[in-house]
């Protein structure tokens, strides 16, 4: 087989395994993270094209997406049953509560910095 065909096959297998083996809970988080990633990229491209004029607004928007992405990935780690032994003493409910609290702080800061 040629190398491209092999690459395509590997990616296809990866995608199928992902669909089969991840729980729907995690898939929801992954979809949410994908949306955050898109908005982050769109903002960054816009800034590169148009210029940094209200730099504070750009930073607020971009940091909002980046931090949301990070918080979502933290939530995904903590609610994943496979990692139960890592996070001893942190129930999924606790993880979700922490997630919401951190988001509250994040959005307060973002709105303030947005101007």
């Amino acid at each position, binding site marked *: 087989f040629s190398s491209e065909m092999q690459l395509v096959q590997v990616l296809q297998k990866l995608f199928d395994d992902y669909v089969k083996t991840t729980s729907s809970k995690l898939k929801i988080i992954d979809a949410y993270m994908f949306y955050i990633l898109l908005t982050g990229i769109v*903002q960054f491209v816009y800034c590169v094209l148009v210029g940094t004029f209200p730099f504070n607004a750009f930073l607020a928007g971009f940091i*909002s997406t980046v931090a949301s992405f990070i918080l979502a990935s933290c939530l995904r780690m903590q609610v994943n049953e496979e990692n139960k032994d890592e996070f001893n003493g942190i129930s999924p409910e606790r993880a979700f509560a922490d997630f919401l609290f951190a988001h509250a702080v994040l959005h307060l800061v973002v709105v303030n910095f947005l101007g």
Partner: protein
Amino acid sequence: MKLLLLLLAASAAADRVLVLVDNMSIRESHSIFFKSITDRGHSITFKNADEGSLQLIKFGELQYENLILFAPSADEFGGTITAAEIARFVDQGGNVLLAGAGSNVGAAVRDVAADNGFEFADQLIDHVNYDSVLDDGTHTTVVASAKSQLMEAPLIVGDRSKLGPILYSGGALVAAPNNRLRLDVFKASSTAYSHDPTKPIKDYPSAVGRQAVLVSAVQARNNARLVLTASLHLFSNQFLSATVNKEGTKPSPSGNKAFVDSLAKWVLKETGVLRVKSVDHHKVGEKEPPREYTIMEDVDYKLEVEELKGNKWVPFDGKDVQLEFVRIDPFVRTTLKNKNGVLSARFKLPDVYGVYKFLVDYRRVGYTHLLDVQQVSVRPLWHTQYERFIRSAFPYYASSFSMMASLVVFSFVFLYHKSDPVVAQAKKTN
């Protein structure tokens, strides 16, 4: 009330002139000149140059507004008058008209001229331009052409094209090169030179051709005026009413009368005097100036200037008065539009804040120096005067709020979804 106004108006030219002469016959030999001065409202006091009671300044106040020195041979002035006293007189705004001579100029007169940057040279001789009737053979009665030898300054000399030939008999002035305030009103022709007519010429003459100045004017920085000349005969009745006879030209009346009249009017501050009647500035659309202006505002500036003409203040008609809006350097420079003495301009304030001056600094030959400064502050925008939402930042606003909205949606979906039983993980087989 009306009487008071009449008195005030009349007093515009009711100033005192002190005339110092070295012998009283000058009063008669120059009577036409003196009469023209008194006819215009001045009051003349004749005194001998060495009289003991002379006093220009008494207890710090000027005793006279103008001083005419027709005493070329005076070695010392009487009373308290010295060259230093005359300099103080000018510093306080007094005007001086000084006439010298070609020979025998006294030390006191030389001192006054030296204070103003001039030296007296010998008698002026011109073998080409002399009056064939009035001259005594030494070619010292010189005929000068108004058009080529007078300066272009209608306020000081009058209309050059209408003046007849001018008779001159006397010495010449030599100006120091660093004398920047002087105006060479009347220069000698290129064929003239100054030397003692009775002695043979051994040295190069002290003043030759157009370097020899016959009448010079100085306007000090406080607008006091001085006119210096080296000829007393210029003002004499004989020259004022003479007919000029020059070889090769038709006899014509001398232009001395019109010339010395213009000179006298200028030096006695009757012409070429400007003053500011009123000045104001405000935002376009308002009437009063604000406490401070804001950057980028539209501003109206108005200046009313009057000129003294024939003893009355009339609106000034100069079309080249400039306004500068200066904060160390001028940010705006515009020519004011003149509408019947009201000079106005409208412009936009610069985008830079600071303390500025509306500066009008008008210097023209023959006019007094017109200076008006109005200081104003220009402030930057208040933070409530900026646009609240910036159009180019809308994507960032949108993304931030979409993050919050998607968080809410995600939380609902995450908490209330029905999770499918997890597919048993197939053991990895190779």
